[in-house]
């Protein structure tokens, strides 16, 4: 059996070796790693670098033409248009008021969503780290929403929250009144935060759980022998040793929250009014949803979002480096 396998393996090697040998003769042994990386680099260049460069070009050009060569250069006027505000605290005084509403909404959303998600993920991870019954099952349950498509998540919650949805049916059945969960700006905003937390917290719980499991049990045993209360052990042992994971969760959560779009767009469409319209939706609508596609303005806004994400990514790298050292 092993002889036959070796024969087949040898045959395959003979078939694939000649192009590799030819390649090595052409690029040399030192060039082989670059040759292997080249296909991926090409894909990266086509699908990441080129769109980024194009996006910068769109941001400094005007008009509504799609083809880059047909667009007139306008310098920083798209950025100036976005920044034109009488008073940054009064959104009505801004020329692109929808952009500033989206900035405001996104800021609030990021604040509530990230804090809420870290707290809930931490509590969940702490519980799942304890020797409770059916622990494996519960870990799967909390992780399951992460596996769902954002469209599915949004449709499930829409079904629950709409005026004649499940939650209102329960409320009315219990003798209460219908609540406009998705029609009142405050309620709609709160639900976008909660749905987003529900959909993503499983992933962050897993990161924190891994961190908790890496804490040596001896520390807790020593603390218990010293008569340290549980809350003190949490503050003095768990939290400091979990900090590197917490930082990763914080930065990843921030990046993800700034990018929020898919499930919220399907759940509320950005409404009511613009109560749940966040930055990515603003960019999408400015670029594509209106009949006249104002691509320059959308590109300028996306560069600003990209800048925020770059800062957050650099922070993550900095924290990771510190944690390692």
């Amino acid at each position, binding site marked *: 059996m092993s002889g036959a396998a070796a024969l087949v393996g040898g045959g395959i090697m003979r078939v694939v070796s000649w192009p590799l040998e030819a390649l090595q003769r052409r690029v040399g042994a030192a060039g082989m790693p670059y040759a292997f990386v080249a296909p991926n680099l090409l894909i990266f260049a086509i699908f990441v670098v080129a769109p980024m460069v194009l996006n910068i070009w769109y941001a400094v050009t005007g008009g509504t033409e799609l083809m880059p060569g047909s667009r007139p250069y306008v310098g920083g006027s798209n950025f100036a248009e976005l920044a034109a505000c009488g008073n940054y605290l009064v959104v009505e005084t801004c020329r692109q008021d929808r952009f500033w509403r989206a900035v405001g909404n996104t800021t609030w959303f990021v604040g509530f969503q990230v804090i809420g998600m870290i707290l809930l993920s931490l509590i969940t991870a702490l519980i799942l780290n304890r020797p409770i019954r059916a622990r494996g099952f519960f870990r799967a349950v909390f992780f399951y929403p992460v596996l769902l498509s954002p469209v599915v998540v949004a449709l499930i919650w829409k079904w629950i929250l709409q005026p004649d949805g499940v939650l209102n049916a329960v409320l009315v059945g219990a003798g209460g009144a219908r609540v406009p969960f998705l029609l009142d700006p405050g309620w709609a905003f709160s639900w976008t935060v909660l749905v987003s937390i529900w959909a993503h917290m499983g992933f962050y719980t897993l990161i924190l759980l891994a961190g908790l499991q890496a804490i040596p049990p001896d520390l807790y045993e020593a603390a218990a022998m010293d008569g340290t209360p549980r809350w003190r052990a949490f503050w003095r042992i768990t939290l400091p040793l979990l900090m590197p994971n917490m930082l990763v969760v914080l930065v990843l959560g921030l990046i993800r929250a700034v990018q929020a779009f898919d499930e919220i767009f399907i759940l509320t469409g950005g409404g009511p009014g*613009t109560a749940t319209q966040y930055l990515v939706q603003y960019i999408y609508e400015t670029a594509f949803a209106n009949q006249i596609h104002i691509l320059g303005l959308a590109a300028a806004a996306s560069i600003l979002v990209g800048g925020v994400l770059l800062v957050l990514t650099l922070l993550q790298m900095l924290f990771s480096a510190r944690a390692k050292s």
Partner: protein
Amino acid sequence: MRSILRRSMFGVLALGALIVPIAARAATEVRIMWYSDGNEGEVVRDLLNRFETANPDIKVILDTVPYKTITENLPAQVASGQAPDMARVTDLGSQAQYYLDITPYIKDQAYWQAEFPNTLQWTRPAGKTDGIYGLMTQLTVTLPFVNESLFEQAGVAVPGPKATWQEWATAAAAVAKKVNAPIPIAIDRSGHRIFGMAISMGAKIWDGDKVALVDPGFKAMTQLIYDWHRDGVMAKQIWGSVGGTAYRGATEEFANGQVVVYVSGTWQIAQFAKTIGDGFDWHAVPSPCGPAACTGLPGGAALVAYKTTKHPAEVARIMDYLASEPVAREFYARTLFLPAHASMLKSGIDYQTKLPQVKESLQSGIAAIAALSPLAYRVQGYAQNRVLFNPTISRLNQAISGEMTLPDAWTRISSDVQDALQAQAVK
């Protein structure tokens, strides 16, 4: 081993060289990007199958896509030179510079000119007054659908043909109150649906050739919709449940008997025939009146070919076939669509339905087309009409949800329209 591999490769290449020209000669492939509201996709496929049998040199591939793909993705695809051969579109004028003039390829120009006199202009590029750029697969008109069963249960008379918007609102609110219906009036969250109402209220839209959207008539229309949301005549769950320019209809709510009067369009008739049937008494009624007119807005979907097609003659043969009277008649009869075809509008169509509601509604649609205001045709023919529609929807919605006052919304609508038109003027 190497020689075996090389021989195999040569064999495959040689076989390919033989097969490809044969396959290419076998049939010219024409791709149509198509969306469906009802059964029109199945009907057109059936008709195209017959066309393929009669024309074995042409194979028609129908790429069925969601409507959103037509409105959002197709324009970018077309602008980048990657258009399909043909597409079924509703945003007729704004992409007209990319449409192919099929005049040189069709059999009988006079037939097209005589049978589609009012709609050929809708697909012509700006400044053009001749040429054949599209075939209207469906003519639509906005009008209200009434749940007559609810009126009967409430003991309220259905307003007559010349009733005003306010009279309809009063009647619908009275019905809803008596029968405990949650939505007295629902209007699709679409600019197209409310511009007929604006024209009826006296909106002029243009001052000469210049767009001057926010005038007293337009303000009167937006004020009505704003007030109806305040006093419960319109439920927030239609306009308030989404943001931006997103479309939201009340098709399901109407079919479930929750809406007394639903302002939508004739393309819903086929849907309602299927979803409601004779579950309750429903039918379309003439457009309500304002001080200036009693008009809805025309619209519809057109099949257009793109200049980038490599098969203009084949595309024109498909267009000729679908425009021919027996084929078009069968298409309209089976899909329950209003025809854009002048002779059929006059002679009528024997629609394939036994439901009196459907026949009555289609009759109301045909009557509504005859009653359309010339300004309504102008709005539909305006290439950038969504530049008027979209800000109206999004800003009015912000006012309804309490983010801004209605006068602020009017100011923003004006500036949004001007910004969009200026952006387009930058060359």
